[in-house]
C-alpha cells in the first residue's frame, strides 16, 4: 500500500494553564490517502480545529504538542524547527480558515497577497507569479481574474473572498489541504459552491483534504471517510456512507439521529442528553459515559481504544469482542 499523505499517530495536545494542564487532544490517530477527503465532525470544543492546527504546526503557546507523531508523506513534521515547519506551511499543506471576511489582509490587493505567497514557496519571477495568480483565480471561479487581481479584499463578497482564500491555500500545489469550517460563515447557496470547489480541486490535483466541520450535510456530500470526535478523541472513523447510515458508537448514533430529514415522517429528533464535559473535568473511563444510554460499569473505569469493526473503527466497549459481564444492547 502507498504511504498516506497524512498520518497522525497518538497525537496529544496540551494547554498549560495556571491551575493545571488541559489535554485538548488525547491519543488521536488517523490517515488520509492521496486524493481522499476526510471529514472531521464533532461538537464545539471536541478538538477538531486544534487537530488541524497541530498538523500545520500553528499551536501557539500556552498550547503544545505533548505526544504522538505526525507524518506528511512519510516524513515526520511535528518536531521540525520553526523555520522548516514554515516551509511546509503553504508549500506542502494549505489551510483554509472559517471566516473569509477576516482571513485576508485588508490593506493589500489580493493579487499582491497571492504573488507574495507564490514567491515565498516557488522561485518564480514577479510576472510569472502574477500570471500564475491569475490562473489560480480563474481556477477557483473568480470571474474576470485579470481585472479582479488588483482589487482589495473589501471589494469582494464573502463567497468570492473564500474562493480567494482557497486560491491562496492551493497556490503552491500542496499535498494536503486543511479546511477548518470553510463554509460555516457563508450562506447556504454559497456553501454548496465552495464545497464542490474544494471537492473538484482535491480530485483534479490529487490533493488530500482534511475537512473540519460540524455540518453533517457537508460531510456526507464531500467526504470519503469521516472521523467523529468527542472531547479530544476519535469516537468512530470509517467510510462516510457506513458511518452516516450505520453509525456504531452511541455518540455517532446520537449525532446522526439529530439530523432532520425532508423525507422522513415527523418524529421528534433524537437528542443527546447533557453536554460535552469541560477539558478540566473529563470523566474517567470513556469520556462519553455520563451521557451514554448504554453505559455499563466498564465504561466508567476503562478508556476504550478504537477497534476495527468491519469498515469502521470504533472506540466503544459495546463492540469489544472480549467478553464482558454486562448485557449488550443490540448493535446493528
Amino acid at each position, binding site marked *: 500500500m502507498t504511504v498516506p499523505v497524512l498520518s497522525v499517530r497518538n497525537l496529544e495536545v496540551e494547554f498549560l494553564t495556571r491551575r493545571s494542564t488541559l489535554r485538548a487532544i488525547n491519543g488521536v490517530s488517523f490517515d488520509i490517502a492521496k486524493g481522499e477527503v476526510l471529514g472531521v465532525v464533532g461538537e464545539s470544543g471536541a478538538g477538531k480545529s486544534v487537530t488541524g492546527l497541530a498538523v500545520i504546526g500553528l499551536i501557539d503557546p500556552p498550547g503544545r504538542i505533548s505526544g504522538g507523531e505526525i507524518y506528511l508523506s512519510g516524513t515526520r513534521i511535528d518536531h521540525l524547527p520553526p523555520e522548516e515547519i514554515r516551509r511546509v506551511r503553504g508549500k506542502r499543506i494549505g*489551510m483554509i480558515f472559517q471566516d473569509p471576511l477576516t482571513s485576508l489582509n485588508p*490593506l*493589500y*490587493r489580493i493579487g499582491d497577497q497571492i504573488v507574495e505567497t507564490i514567491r*515565498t514557496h516557488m522561485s518564480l519571477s514577479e510576472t510569472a507569479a502574477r500570471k500564475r495568480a491569475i490562473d489560480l483565480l480563474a481556477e477557483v471561479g473568480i470571474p474576470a481574474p485579470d481585472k479582479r487581481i488588483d482589487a482589495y479584499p*473589501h471589494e469582494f463578497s464573502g463567497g468570492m473572498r473564500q474562493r480567494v*482564500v482557497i486560491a491562496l491555500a492551493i497556490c503552491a500545489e500542496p499535498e494536503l489541504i486543511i479546511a477548518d469550517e470553510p463554509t460555516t460563515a457563508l450562506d447556504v447557496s454559497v456553501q454548496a459552491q465552495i464545497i464542490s470547489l474544494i471537492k473538484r480541486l482535491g480530485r483534479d490535483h490529487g490533493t488530500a483534504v482534511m475537512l473540519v466541520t460540524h455540518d453533517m450535510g457537508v460531510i456526507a456530500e464531500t467526504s470519503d471517510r469521516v472521523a467523529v470526535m468527542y472531547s479530544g478523541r476519535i469516537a468512530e472513523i470509517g467510510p462516510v456512507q457506513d458511518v452516516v447510515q450505520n453509525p456504531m458508537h452511541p455518540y455517532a448514533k446520537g449525532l446522526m439521529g439529530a439530523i432532520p430529514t425532508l423525507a422522513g415522517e415527523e418524529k421528534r429528533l433524537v437528542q443527546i442528553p447533557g453536554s460535552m464535559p469541560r477539558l478540566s473535568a473529563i470523566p474517567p473511563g470513556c469520556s462519553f459515559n455520563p451521557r451514554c444510554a448504554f453505559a455499563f460499569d466498564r465504561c466508567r473505569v476503562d478508556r476504550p481504544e478504537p477497534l476495527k469493526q468491519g469498515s469502521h473503527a470504533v472506540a466503544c466497549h459495546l463492540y469489544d469482542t472480549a467478553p464482558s459481564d454486562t448485557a449488550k444492547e443490540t448493535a446493528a
Partner: protein
Amino acid sequence: MLAFTLRRAIQAIGVMIAVGVIAFSMFRFAGDPVNQIVSLDTPAAEREAVRKSLGLDDPVPVQFARYFANAAQFKFGVSYQFRQPVSNLLMERMPATLELAACATVLAMVFGILMGVYSALRRDTILTKFFQAVSLIGISLPTFLIGILLIYLFSVTLGWLPSFGRGDVVRIGWWTTGLLTLSGLKALIMPSITLGLFQMTLIMRLVRAEMLEVLRTDYIRFARARGLTTRAIHFGHALKNTLVPVITVAGLQFGSVIAFAIITETVFQWPGMGLLFVQAVQNVDIPIMAAYLLMVSLIFVTINLVVDILYTVVDPRLRSTIRRPA
C-alpha cells in the same frame, strides 16, 4: 476624492473664521490698546489721534472685517513692544520652531515605532521592560523638568552640550537653519529630546498596543498558515495595519509639538515663536498673541486635513467609502 478634500477644506475655513473671532476679541477684552501704545502723560487729543490712525474708532464689525482681511494676507498689525510688523517677527522666529518641532517629531516617530514594534514582538525581554520604564517616565515627567535635568547632566556636569540658544545659523533666503553648523546641531539635541520624549512614549505605547492587537487577527494567522516568513508577517502585514491609528496620533501630535514648544523654548531660551509668545504675554503684546493663536490653529487645521487625506493612502477601504458617500 476631490469632493472629499474640498468638503474638508471648507470645514477648515470655518474653523479658521471661528478662531479669528476669538483672536480679534482679545483686542477688545484685554484693555484699551491705545493705553498700551502711548505713555501715561500723553494728552487726550493725541490719544484720539492715535486711536483714529489705528482705525480703532470705527464700528466693531468694520474693525473685525479689516482685521480678518489683513490676517488672511498674513498682516497682523504692529507689535506694541517691538514696533515692528508682527508678521515679520513671526517669520523670523518660525524656522527655529519648525526645525525644533520637525526634529522632535522625527525622533519621536523613529524611536517610538522601533521601540513599540520591538516591545510587541519580544514581550518578555529585559529591553522591553526597560522601554516600558522609559515610557512611563516620558509620560509622567513634566517637560520642563526633563529639560532642566538634561541641562544639569549634559551642560552643567558634563559640559558636552550648550544649555541655551540655537548655536550658529546659516541663512538660506528668509529661512535660517541650524542644521548646517556643528554648534547648531549640538544645540538642537537636548531641546528635541525634551520636546519629543512625550510624543515618543505615546507613539511607542500606541504602536505596541496596536501591534499586539493586529498580531491576534485572523489574517495574521492565515498569513502564518500560508508559510510567509516571520519578517514578512511582522513588518509587511502587521506593521502596515498598525500604522493607521499611529498616523492620526502622530499627525495631531505634530500640531501640539509646535504649540507646546513654548515650554521647551522657554527652558532652553530657544529663539522660536513660543519664546516670542511668552514674551508677548508678559508685555501684553496683543497683536503677537492674536497672530500666534491664528498661526497655531492654521497649523492644526492643515495637519488635520493632511492626516485625513493620508488615511486614504494607507487604507484602501476608506477610498471607496469616500468615493461613494453613503
